[in-house]
């Protein structure tokens, strides 16, 4: 399902002392099949935006009690907003948002805090039973739960009857993710899924996301703080700042836009950081943002140097970049 947003605004607590405009004129298109990253500093509106994608945050026009207001005369008419996810029009109050939620899975930040059932099995089956139009057969549920748990890398037989609260932190998070993907959503949205994990846990999580993207959910959208994570994994990245989308970039573009990114207070990917330091010393190396890609580009650069200046006499230390 293609996700398309145009001129989207959102204000929390509108018309009160506590009003906060969290989204300002957001326009963004995410194609079907993308592995899409969302970055930005804290409070830039990332979570607000992605909660729109399955109707957890509703635009005023999508709320039940909404009545269209007459535009004031003379006031500037804002450009019309638009928010489509596949065929769902999310600005229309007649949209079936539960049907949408079955198609768009949402993994919240610290999803392990949403576990509640007595056994892992019951917790994972929760969403499945909720979205089912008629009561499901026991074996159908069992097969779906087994698939989901095994996909997130857990041993079904060993874990299904345990209490989710007795598991380790990493296991809990996997169970929580299994509870979302069990309905086989077409789009999977994750809000900082790697937050609070150690480096190994992070790596495992990213490879889980790749596995899910390959054969479970067509489109994956994930929010991250970690530029390296995004740069190394995503097909495209949206950079949020102050409630708006500042840039939509490919990882390669991300690599060369270090000036812009630092201005927004974002950490550069490690490879880009090294490249920038070299740039300051007068050496320009073009690569993508992965350590491998950078090493290749640097090696090519060094060997081209060696060809240009063959067999120099060695006087003193040989400099190493």
């Amino acid at each position: 399902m293609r996700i398309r947003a145009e001129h989207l605004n959102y204000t929390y607590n509108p018309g009160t002392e506590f009003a906060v405009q969290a989204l300002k004129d957001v326009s963004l298109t995410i194609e079907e099949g993308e592995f899409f990253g969302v970055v930005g500093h804290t409070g830039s509106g990332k979570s607000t935006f992605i909660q729109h994608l399955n109707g957890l945050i509703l635009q005023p026009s999508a709320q039940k009690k909404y009545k269209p207001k007459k535009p004031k005369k003379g006031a500037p008419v804002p450009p019309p907003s638009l928010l489509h996810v596949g065929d769902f029009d999310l600005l229309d109050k007649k949209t079936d948002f539960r049907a949408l939620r079955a198609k768009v899975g949402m993994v919240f930040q610290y999803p392990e805090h949403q576990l509640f059932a007595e056994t892992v099995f019951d917790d994972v089956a929760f969403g499945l039973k909720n979205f089912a139009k008629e009561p499901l057969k026991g074996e159908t549920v069992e097969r779906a739960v087994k698939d989901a748990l095994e996909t997130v890398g857990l041993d079904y037989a060993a874990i299904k009857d345990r209490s989710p609260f007795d598991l380790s932190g990493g296991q809990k998070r996997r169970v929580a993710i299994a509870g979302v993907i069990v309905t086989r959503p077409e789009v999977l949205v994750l809000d900082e899924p790697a937050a609070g994990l150690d480096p190994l846990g992070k790596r495992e999580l990213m490879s889980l996301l790749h596995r899910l993207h390959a054969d479970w959910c067509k489109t994956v959208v994930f929010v991250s703080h970690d530029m390296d994570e995004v740069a190394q994994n995503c097909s495209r990245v949206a950079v949020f700042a102050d409630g708006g989308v500042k840039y939509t970039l490919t990882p390669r573009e991300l690599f060369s836009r270090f000036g812009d990114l630092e201005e927004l207070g974002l950490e550069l990917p490690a490879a880009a950081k090294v490249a920038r330091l070299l740039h300051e010393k007068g050496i320009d190396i073009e690569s993508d943002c992965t350590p491998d890609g950078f090493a290749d580009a640097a090696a090519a650069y060094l060997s081209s140097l060696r060809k240009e200046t063959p067999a120099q006499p060695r006087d003193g230390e040989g400099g190493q970049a």
Partner: protein
Amino acid sequence: MKDVTFGQYYPVDSFVHKCDPRMKILFLIGYLVAVFLSADFYGLAACAAVLVLCVAFSRVPVKSVLRSVKGVLFLIVFTAILNLLFYRGETTVVIADVPLRWWIFNITVEGIRFMIFVMCRIFMLVMISAVLTLTTTPVSLTDGLESLLTPLKWIRVPVHALALIMSIALRMIPTLMDEIERIMNAQRARGADFSHGGPVKRVKAIIPVLVPLLLSALRRAEELGDAMEARCYTGSRTRTRYKKLTFTWRDLLLALLLAALIAGVVLMNVYLPPIL
């Protein structure tokens, strides 16, 4: 943090906001006394005038103050109807030669008068309490209460601990509200439905919210306890305060206003002829 006006601080800078919380609490009590001392409409009018002053000088929009009355509207109407129907008055109201008396009901002139009184009293009490909570942060409110209850410490009531419990509870309300919203959203994303179905279904739907909420409240409590201990909190008597409460000219003005109100009400009760 959505529709809970009652007890929600309204952050603006005003005369009433700057008053000492102790004075404001005392003022509230004194105001209640004045409202109940008022034997006639003169007194009520004086109380109403003071209420208008308080609202005006708090710079809180009247709409926000009135919103807190909405919560007790049912109570006001209910007591009003009870009083109207059952007040034991003497002169039954007669409309078109038909006395309004039927079975155990008896609508009297005194009943109507009393009903208006009761409505005005409840209304003013709620309004003045709302002004207090809208202009005073929960923390300074408990600070004020603790300070006012100091005499109880002499008879070994753990005032400080009670005040601490209260301020932590108040402090946690918005946090828990946010938490509830987050958990509800997470379960809604998994297809939970909180707004449809019969009562049994709805109660059942709450369980997936309640369990994570309790767990997180316990986790927070533990963390808070650890954090306080790590900073050597023991609740000892020699503890000093970061924010000291001080009386200023504003509080003097408030005290004078209160004294004038109570004196005025008493004098009006004695010297002015009764209406009705």
